[in-house]
Each structure stands twice: as structure tokens, then as C-alpha cells.
């Protein structure tokens, strides 16, 4: 099978859907002439023209609101944020308008829109450029939240997000755009809200999503050499959460470690922990462990950043803890 980069998978997903549906357009900072701040829309201006691939001024509130407004006339926009950190100046348009306009209008105005861009840390970018808001969006009824971890999932899920009739937050990573992976030439779409067991195992379940899942893979490799078998679940979608896949796995392994790059208070891991203790209490042989970032803004200094981020060693320690080793 051919191998392509994550950014190419994103561009392919958008381009394939735009070829089929004139109602779809792409809007954001540097998406057109610059080919995307991270080249995730490379070639799209040339193919679709400036009517459908639209550069904006730096006005996240304004262009997000324009895009949401246009859904009321039948458009199906894709809005790119250079990072989700920047959406904060206009998050009102996502939370108060995109997520609620269908409900407030009694179902008259659905909002088929995709907000996409990078989330979480990407090297030494310090406090304002390293944040993960998956749980903020996942807390909001009306939205769906997708966080893929590889090019195959990214393409299949982005196509599903674009076709979906509800607003979708689609979160990528600056540090994944260059990742390569197998992506078939043939068309495929992946279902929203379905997790995938990336590795089967029997001793412990590790749940993760997004780029940080790579630390789980590394940890699992080392633990295999010690005779510990890890089952790794990639959530892929965090709202709605695929509880069944998690619960089935925990009922098999009886142990759970959750790895999430986010501040520790009230995050996705917290919700999973609650659901598992609520629905599989008798299956647990150890308390659930969750691994997150430090409970501080991201520091700049390389030594501090390494300390702040979760890594494979943290995963190994947590796995051994739930195994009482």
C-alpha cells in the first residue's frame, strides 16, 4: 500500500469531498495562497479556486461566525485554525452558535461545519501555544470531537466529519503533519464515535488518543520484553465516547491506564475513570491510573517541558503500578 504524510491525508480528505459537493468550502488563515500554515491544504487553491479556498485576515471570531452563518444558507464549511489556541478569541462562535443553533431553533437550522487544526503542544512553544482543549469542546452538547493519531484514521475520519450534518471539532497536531502512514488509494470513510484497538493485549488496557498515543506504543514495546502484554485503545473520537470498547477491554484485562496530553483537572481521562468505575467496578483489580500534563501552564525551557509532558516512562510506571509490580 502507498505511504503518505498526515498533511497529505488531510488535504486528500478535503479535496475528495469538495470534488463531490459544491457546498463545501475551506476558510482560514493562510489556507489558500500559502497552501496552509502546515501545508495541509497544498494544491487546493489551484484546484478549487479562490471562491472555495478562502484566505482570511487574522480574525478568528469573524471568520468562524461567517462560516457558521453560512450554514444557515446551505453551505458546509471547513474552518481551519492555525492552532486551536487561536480559536479562543472567537470560541463564542463555536460554543454559543455552532453547537446550539440547531437546538435553539427547535431543529430548524442544523450546522454542518468542521473546525479543524492542531491541538496540544508542539515543542517549546510555551504557555499559550501548547494547550489541549479536547475536554472543553467534548463538554459541550451539540459538538462532536475527533482527535486522530495517524494518517489513515485522519483521512477516513475527516471525510466522515465533512459529511456529518452536525458541527465537528477535528484536532490534529503540528508534530504529526510529517508523520507517514499507509493510506489506500481507494476511497474509505471511518465511523465517528468508534474507538479502535490498535494493539491487542491481556494484562492491562491503555486508553489514549492523538499524538501522545505514540508514548503508549513505545512503553508497550518495552513492557513486552518484560513479559507484560498491553492492550492499546485509540479513542479517535472523544465525543461521543466509545465506552463499549473501553469497558469490554477493561473487563478482559481488569486494569486501566489512561494517557492524555491535557491538564489533569476534569479532562477526558477523568470522565473515562468515572464511567469505568461506574460500569465495571467489580472487574477492576487496581485503581485506574491517569497520566496527563503537569497541572501548570506549559513551560518553555526544554528540561521543564520534558518534565511537564507525559512520556513512555510515565506509562511504564503507571502500568507497573496497576499490576502491583
Amino acid at each position: 500500500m502507498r505511504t503518505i504524510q498526515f498533511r497529505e491525508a488531510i488535504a486528500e480528505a478535503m479535496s475528495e469531498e469538495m470534488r463531490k459537493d459544491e457546498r463545501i468550502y475551506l476558510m482560514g488563515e493562510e489556507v489558500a495562497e500559502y497552501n496552509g500554515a502546515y501545508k495541509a491544504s497544498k494544491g487546493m487553491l489551484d484546484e478549487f479556486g479562490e471562491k472555495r479556498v478562502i484566505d482570511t485576515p487574522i480574525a478568528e471570531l469573524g471568520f468562524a461566525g461567517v462560516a457558521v452563518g453560512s450554514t444557515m444558507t446551505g453551505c458546509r464549511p471547513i474552518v481551519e485554525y492555525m492552532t486551536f489556541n487561536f480559536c479562543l478569541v472567537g470560541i463564542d462562535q463555536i460554543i454559543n452558535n455552532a453547537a446550539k443553533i440547531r437546538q435553539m431553533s427547535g431543529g430548524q437550522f442544523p450546522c454542518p461545519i468542521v473546525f479543524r487544526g492542531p491541538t496540544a503542544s508542539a515543542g517549546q512553544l510555551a504557555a499559550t501555544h501548547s494547550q489541549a482543549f479536547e475536554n472543553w469542546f467534548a463538554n459541550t452538547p451539540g459538538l462532536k470531537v475527533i482527535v486522530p493519531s495517524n494518517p489513515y484514521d485522519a483521512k477516513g475520519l475527516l471525510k466522515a466529519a465533512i459529511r456529518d450534518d452536525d458541527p465537528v471539532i477535528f484536532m490534529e497536531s503540528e508534530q504529526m503533519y510529517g508523520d507517514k502512514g499507509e493510506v489506500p488509494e481507494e476511497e474509505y470513510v471511518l465511523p465517528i464515535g468508534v474507538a479502535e484497538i490498535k494493539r491487542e493485549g491481556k494484562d492491562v488496557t491503555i486508553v489514549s488518543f492523538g499524538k501522545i498515543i505514540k508514548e503508549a506504543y513505545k512503553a508497550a514495546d518495552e513492557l513486552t520484553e518484560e513479559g507484560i502484554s498491553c492492550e492499546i485503545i485509540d479513542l479517535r473520537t472523544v465525543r461521543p465516547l466509545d465506552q463499549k470498547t473501553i469497558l469490554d477491554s477493561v473487563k478482559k484485562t481488569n486494569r486501566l491506564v489512561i494517557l492524555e496530553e491535557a491538564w489533569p483537572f476534569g479532562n477526558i481521562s477523568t470522565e473515562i475513570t468515572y464511567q469505568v468505575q461506574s460500569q465495571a467496578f467489580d472487574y477492576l483489580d487496581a485503581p485506574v491510573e491517569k497520566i496527563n500534563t503537569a497541572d501548570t501552564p506549559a513551560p518553555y525551557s526544554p528540561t521543564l517541558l520534558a518534565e511537564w509532558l507525559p512520556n513512555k516512562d510515565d506509562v511504564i510506571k503507571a502500568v507497573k503500578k496497576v499490576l502491583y509490580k
Partner: protein
Amino acid sequence: MKKITKQTYLKWYEDMLLWRKFEDKLAAVYIQQKVRGFLHLYNGQEAVLAGALHAMELGKDRMITAYRNHVQPIGMGVDPRRVMAELYGKATGTSHGLGGSMHIFSKEKRFHGGHGIVGGQIPLGAGMAFGDKYNNSDAVTLCYFGDGAARQGSLHESFNLAMLWNLPVVFICENNGYAMGTSVARTANHEDIWKLGLGYEMPSEPCDGMDPVAVAKAMDKAISRARKGGGPTFLEMKTYRYRGHSMSDAQKYRTKDEVEEYKKIDPITQVLDVIKSKKYATQKQIDEIDARVKALVKECEQFAEDSPFPEKELMYDAVYEQKDYPFIPHKL
């Protein structure tokens, strides 16, 4: 512009009287606690709507506004009984009771809300115009907001994008003098809100918002410009609200004399004076209009009273297009 005739005046009188009496009825049933939440009434500002409706192409053009939004959809053709029912939280309401006072919508009549966050609807209005342009429609969007919202950043981003992309939109500031209890003078170093458009080179002007003729003329010019591809206009309608910001407002920030001064130029009185002086209707005919309005408002109240409350499932069904969205279970 469509000619302003005897029929126009009679329609204006009946429409504006209905809106006034509809809002008065809401105030009354609010005190009886049949309508709850916040309640922002349009009394005094009716000419802004009446003039605009005269210039609009109903069925094609769109409107969006903030939370003072009960009577605009009625003006655009929405059944007033359903608007009243929405305020009662009933299943027969425009949003089946999910939206309430601040969130009236009608896709059919192209009324796009009804928005509760000050200024949050301004980019949506620009976006509706963006969508119509994208879809090669010659519809025009009327995007309303108050003088309070004029101080939000959303206004500036929307103005800039609308000019940059030459969108078919008319931005209308209904300057009723007060952002809740804060007068316009206390929110900026100058009071000419219409001048905010000039920095974007947007055609901008003030207009007497108590006079439906002045409003209709200004709106017609702006709507024609947008429809012909001439882009946005910004109009500042100088108007006044007689009632408080919402029902819970004690109005200590203004004097009773000030309110009385504005009532002298009341839009309904102005229109009625013309009808009488030009003998467009006899007193009997005017009395008949008054009786019709009274009966209709009564009918709205009765309809809302008699309607059932929504089923519990609605709370879930309205959120997503997806029919089987797996909500987290609620209550044991």
C-alpha cells in the same frame, strides 16, 4: 422603492399596533409568571422594523437580530400565536419551547434569530450574506444589533470581512440610547455610532428610527446597493425603547420626562396622525383595526395557554441531526 401609499400607512398602523399590543400582553403575562426568563420588549422601536419590511423582498431576504426579537418574525409572516407559544415554553412554539424569549427562529420565513449573546449574531449575519453570495442568490441579509453590541469586537471583524468580500448585507444598529443601563455617551468617546463604518469605507449614515418613512428610504437604498453587488451598508437607527432593558429593569438611569419626550414622536402616533390628516381611514375603520389587533392578541394568548408543554424526548432530539446520538444517561 415601492410607493408609500394609503395602504402602506394602514398596514404600518395595524402591524405596529399589533407588535405594541403583543409586547404589552407579554409584559402582563410575565407579571403573572406565565412567561419566565428574560423578557426584552420592542415598544418604541417599531418604526425601525416597519420601514425595513417595506423595503425588503419578503420570502427572499433574510433577517437576524439580538434578543429583542419577538415582533420581527411576526412582521416577516410568522404566525404570532406560535411566537407567543414559544414564550410560554409550549410545544407549538416556533422552537417547540426550546428557545424562549431570546431565541425565535423561522427557517421558512427566513428569520434567523433571536440571539442572546450581545454581538454574537453580527458575524452570523455576515455569514448568511456570504452564503447567499456563494450560492449565487441575490438575497440580502439585514443584520441588526443594539448600541451595546456596537462596542463588541465582533462588529469590527464582521465589518471588515463584509467589506473585504463585498457581502450583500445591511448592518443596522438600533440605537435606543442605552446598553441595559449604560447610555451611549458612557460607552465611547463619541456618540455617532454610524461613523464606525467609515474606517472600513462602508457607506454609513444615521437615520431617524422613529419615522417609518425615513427608515424605509434608507433601507431601500441600502438593500438595493447590496442586491446590485454594491456591498454592505451601515445604518444607525436613532430610536428609543419605552420599557426597561428587560422586565427586571428599574430604569433609574433615565427620567420619566425623557421617556415622555420620546412618546411625543411615537411611531404609531406619527402614522396615525398621517392617516387621520390625510383621511386614509374613518374613525370607524381605525376602531375596526384596533378591535382586530385586540382580538388577535387575545387569540395568541389563548393558543399559548391551551397548547401542551413539549415531550421530554425533544430535549435530546433537537441537539444533533444524528438520530441515535449516544447521550450520557441522565438521572437514575
